[in-house]
């Protein structure tokens, strides 16, 4: 009788536990359903242009989707990304990164005199801008020093996604607060739905804001300049442009290709870092040396892409040259020797590559073949005009 009772009790306990577990499972499942509704964002595959790298810098936890790119484009051009709604304090990526200037602000910017941008509080950025072109193929770190890279010991400063957060918080940019931005974006009609379609939740997180903007930036691809068309056999270069091309590509000529690419590297940058002989004293706390600690990196900065370079003045990390002509004059006669000049600047000991005026003109003519009108006018890269709630986007 006692054994029978014990069995009965066991059965009751087991059944109760089973029912309880089942209820718990249903409850968890229901909660998950509420927070992370099923979503199926549409994968977006970058079509790699001919001769371009096949290896792309896309984090495994932020694959490109059509929904993510659309959301990122809205945020890129929404001044409320700064967390502000007052007109004078509103700022977003698109405030400074203008499509018509290859996503720099350009030397003729009406607000940023001389092409040197400043943040909402008026503080100038430490360096001039770099163009946002073909960053999906940049594996060597972002910024002039390359500090934002997978090698950065600070795990919060490694990716394009991290740069979005840094841009919102930096005193010389949006001088904002990610919580404020997150709350503001959450409150704007239309955004929660877009976040849900992209990331499966209507709850706006700053991580997802960063992921969306980074997705959009990775789609900014330039591959349709006159030179690209020449490489594809679609268009011929003029005699002057061809002369410039030969100068660009030869060691005894202007020898640009070792650092800036060419037919074998259509990005027109190695994305690597060089001291190109501008100075003899080096005290910039944001040069390549500040990242590597290698004395050879004193005064070294990232070689910029030359795509659309005619639109992205002023030039060099500090904007010391206003025009392309000034830049070519510098490489021709203005290089200053120091022990830190990169050995690829082999003409440094005699001040530069010593081009004649006609050679300079030829070289500039070739460099201008890297202007990509398709990129500069592609509506997919430009301002959406209206934001999800009908407000005006940054133009």
């Amino acid at each position: 009788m006692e054994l029978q009772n014990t069995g009965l009790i066991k059965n009751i306990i087991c059944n109760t536990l089973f029912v309880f577990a089942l209820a718990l499972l249903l409850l968890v499942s229901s909660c998950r359903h509420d927070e992370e509704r099923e979503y199926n964002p549409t994968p977006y595959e970058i079509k790699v242009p001919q001769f371009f790298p096949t290896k792309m810098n896309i984090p495994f936890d932020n694959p490109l989707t059509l929904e993510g790119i659309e959301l990122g484009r809205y945020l890129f051009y929404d001044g409320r990304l700064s967390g502000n709604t007052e007109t004078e304090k509103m700022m977003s990526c698109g405030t400074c990164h203008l499509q018509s200037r290859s996503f720099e602000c350009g030397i003729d910017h009406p607000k940023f005199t001389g092409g040197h941008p400043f943040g909402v509080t008026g503080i100038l950025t430490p360096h001039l801008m770099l163009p946002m072109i073909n960053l999906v193929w940049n594996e060597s770190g972002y910024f002039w020093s390359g500090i934002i890279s997978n090698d950065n010991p600070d795990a919060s400063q490694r990716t394009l996604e991290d740069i979005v957060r840094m841009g919102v918080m930096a005193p010389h940019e949006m001088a904002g607060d990610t919580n404020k931005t997150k709350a503001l974006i959450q409150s704007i009609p239309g955004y929660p739905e877009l976040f849900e379609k992209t990331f499966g939740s209507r709850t706006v997180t700053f991580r997802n804001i960063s992921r969306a903007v980074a997705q959009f930036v990775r789609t900014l691809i330039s591959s349709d300049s006159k030179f690209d068309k020449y490489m594809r056999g679609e268009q011929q270069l003029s005699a002057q442009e061809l002369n410039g091309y030969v100068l660009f590509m030869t060691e005894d000529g202007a020898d640009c290709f070792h650092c800036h690419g060419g037919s074998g590297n259509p990005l027109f940058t190695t994305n690597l870092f060089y001291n190109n002989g501008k100075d003899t004293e080096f005290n910039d706390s944001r040069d390549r040396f500040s990242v590597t600690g290698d004395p050879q990196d004193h005064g070294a900065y990232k070689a910029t892409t030359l795509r659309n370079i005619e639109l992205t003045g002023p030039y060099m990390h500090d904007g010391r040259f206003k025009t392309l002509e000034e830049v070519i004059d510098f490489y021709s006669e203005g290089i200053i020797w120091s022990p830190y000049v990169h050995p690829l600047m082999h003409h440094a000991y005699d001040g530069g590559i010593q081009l004649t005026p006609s050679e300079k003109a030829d070289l500039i003519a070739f460099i201008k073949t890297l202007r990509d009108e398709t990129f500069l006018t592609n509506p997919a890269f430009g301002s959406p005009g209206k934001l999800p709630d009908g407000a005006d986007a940054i133009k």
Partner: protein
Amino acid sequence: MKYLNFLLSFAVASILLFDSCKKDEEKWVAPEFTFHHNVNGSALQKSVMIYTNLAGNNYEVDELQYFISEITLKTASGQLIPITSDSAIHYVDLAIPSTLSWKPADQIPTTDYDSISFVFGINEAKNKTGLFVNPPQRDMFWPDMMGGGYHYMKMNGKWKATGDLIKAFNFHLGIGMGDMGMFYQNYFKVTLPLKFHTMANSNQIEITMNIEKWFEAPNLWDWNVIGGQIMQNQDAMHKACENGAHVFGIAFKGN
């Protein structure tokens, strides 16, 4: 009883099969190639002007990047064992530690070996622009108008020129350009004796470049005479490649 016999036969067959598989496994081992750089026996110190070549030039090396390809091992019985993975091309870059060793997917037979050979650079059939679209190999590209393909080597540094001027050298090797649009393939094959028997655990083959040998013989290299840049100087590249025959050493380390 029949059932027991069957089980016994099955067990014996399994053991034999397992043993045979094991023996098969032991017949093949994975090689590893490691790349080392020295100046007359002392490990290369980057960016320090402490070296003097036979011509009396003080020099330093800041960057070194090159391709080794078509590595082939020759057994004592004369069989040639080519390393074919990664298109049989390996890129070495002093600034990228991971390139200083290479574990190709190839397996080599367990036996006695007599020698090893490789191509310095990339042979004519493979050395075409577009072979590499991704960095870092991509950045070795050699202009199409100068023959195309890729630099076999970039060694960048500085030397103390006449009058104590510090000048930059770019010891770059690739396809040479002659008169009348002629192109010259400057890659060369290196064969080095190396007697070893493959080991069970590791089979490391050390390939060592003695930088100084690029500048010694048969052609004395004086930057003050030749100049720092040689991409458009086929005569200089040819001389450099002749010297290159004496640059490499090899050793086997296994256990």
